[in-house]
């Protein structure tokens, strides 16, 4: 396969640390988690009372949480997408709070929670003329969307694709994860020996992906390159990660092959790292299998929670920031690394020497695995 030419020329995010990439980056490097007690709705019946919520959002009062987050991104900064950009929206539950609002307050229309409505609103907000597509592959939605954008560019279907991703912390989602017994009682601690579940988080993010030739022609700053990707399915269980990690191993090998590089070229891994016992063990098993030597691994989810459909894009943007800063971030909330993660994960940030290529892994319900290689 030829070397790909999909580059990222603009990106930004809103997370529980605030608006902007630097807010998230600096928050993570401070070691302070943005997961805190959730006051948005009553959590007393649930497994946990903690989440990483964006401050200042209004809940069940008109605009959905995700539209408010995109308002912070698109209305308050200078970014505007080229009008001819294709548009991909990645989300799991989008504006599900509109359905909640109908049931809980009698206002609105449950049908407006259909993501096609969000797609239309966002394409207008972002200023693109394309009606767009939704990609939903559970918690790997936005990494699959980035892969699709890169594929569209590689195949000549477009030379400019805007990828947006979002999910909010709502009672619908929170109660569901609680019913699955997936939540940590306080803040998640990925790859820790004592980890006991995930923390939900919310985020909105975008990335403008272009062909390298168009980016150069328009004299755009190239923030990073999507060098390769791999997508796979475990085909074994709806909610439980594979006990053999074979699906993720296949996804990582596909990504390395499509980037035309070997495992030795990867400088660090941004892992899905939810903080559940089984997910993190599944990922470490895959990394042990693919990589001949220990390399730095981190998870952002102890810091900003699991942002569901937005996770892959947020984590890709952070990985690009890490490459730019030549710094591998720490894993927030890590105290004692589990035995299989010893020497891979760290409580402290450290300098990235030499290799300028990162691997981002994500996974989701239905056995979905994604791996992206960026440089």
């Amino acid at each position: 396969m030829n070397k790909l030419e999909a580059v990222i020329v603009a990106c930004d995010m809103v997370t529980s640390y605030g608006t902007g990439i630097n807010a998230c980056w600096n928050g993570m490097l401070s070691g302070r988690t943005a997961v805190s007690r959730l006051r948005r709705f009553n959590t007393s019946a649930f497994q946990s009372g903690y989440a990483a919520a964006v401050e200042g959002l209004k809940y069940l009062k008109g605009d959905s949480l995700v539209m408010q987050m995109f308002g912070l991104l698109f209305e308050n900064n200078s970014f505007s997408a080229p009008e001819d950009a294709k548009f991909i929206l990645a989300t799991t539950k989008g504006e599900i709070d509109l359905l909640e609002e109908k049931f809980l307050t009698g206002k609105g229309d449950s049908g407006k929670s259909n993501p096609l409505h969000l797609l239309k609103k966002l394409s207008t907000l972002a200023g693109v003329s394309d009606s767009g597509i939704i990609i939903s592959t559970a918690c790997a939605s936005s990494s699959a969307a980035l892969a699709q954008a890169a594929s569209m560019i590689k195949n000549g279907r477009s030379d400019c694709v805007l990828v947006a991703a979002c999910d909010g912390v709502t009672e619908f989602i929170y109660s569901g994860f609680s019913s699955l017994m997936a939540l940590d009682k306080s803040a998640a601690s990925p790859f820790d020996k004592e980890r006991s579940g995930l923390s939900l988080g919310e985020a909105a993010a975008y990335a403008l992906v272009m062909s390298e030739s168009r980016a150069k022609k328009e004299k755009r700053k190239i923030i990073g390159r999507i060098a390769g990707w791999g997508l796979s399915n475990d085909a074994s269980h709806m909610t439980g990660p594979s006990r053999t990690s074979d699906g993720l191993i296949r996804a990582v090998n596909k990504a390395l092959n499509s980037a035309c590089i070997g495992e030795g070229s990867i400088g660090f891994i941004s892992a899905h790292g939810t903080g559940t016992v089984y997910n993190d063990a599944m990922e470490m098993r895959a990394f042990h299998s693919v990589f001949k030597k220990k390399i730095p691994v981190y998870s952002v989810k102890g810091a900003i929670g699991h942002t569901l459909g937005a996770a892959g894009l947020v984590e890709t943007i952070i990985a690009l920031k890490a490459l730019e800063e030549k710094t591998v971030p720490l894993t927030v909330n890590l105290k004692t690394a589990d035995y299989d993660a010893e020497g891979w994960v760290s409580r402290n940030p450290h300098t990235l020497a030499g290799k300028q290529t990162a691997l981002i892994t994500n996974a989701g319900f239905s056995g979905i695995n994604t791996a992206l290689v960026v440089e």
Partner: protein
Amino acid sequence: MINIFGIGWIDNEEYGCIAAGEKVNYKDSAGFDGLSKRIFSHPFKNFGRLDKTSKLICYAAALALKDACINYSQKQDMGIIGTNDSGSLESDLLYFKDYLDSGRTLSRGNLFIYTLPSSPLGEAAIHFGLQGPLFYTASRRKPLSAIMEMASEMILSDETSAMLAGVNSDENAVCLILKKSAVSGNNFLCHESTIKAITSKDLAFKYLIKEFSALRKGSI
């Protein structure tokens, strides 16, 4: 070149396989759930716990695989992509009403799982052993044409060697098997572009099936 090797479909009364020229009316002989023993070539564990959309997709997928003469006793390098225009709204309503009925204290994980629009595809991937990419997508474009475009690109980019592409509504589903192959030979149903020409007309499901059937008979 991408070719279509089989098409399976099901609605409230009938199901069928296009290449095999098979159409069965099941309304009077078996209930919807009772079809599982007829349609699946090996037992589907806990089929009863699936939501309606998952059952429709899995039935149509089994019929499409049968139509393409593909055995699914082993896991295989095939992806799955699906679309509809309602997302998971029915499952969302079911889950949240159930949760509210409990006094907002208890929710059911088995209902929550199906509030992800990708979950019906996940059920199919597990039963049929599909290890390639799994995508739910939606757009305002003609649904089947849109997913066939994405599926074809994935095959041509060597992301997977075959794709199962499906579209459903509340009451019906159709699935197609797409694979790369040479033009010569007659083991495939038709070329992808022929199907695209049909699916881009935005016809109702029954008419789509008629056109597919006519296609098989060589009348288009």
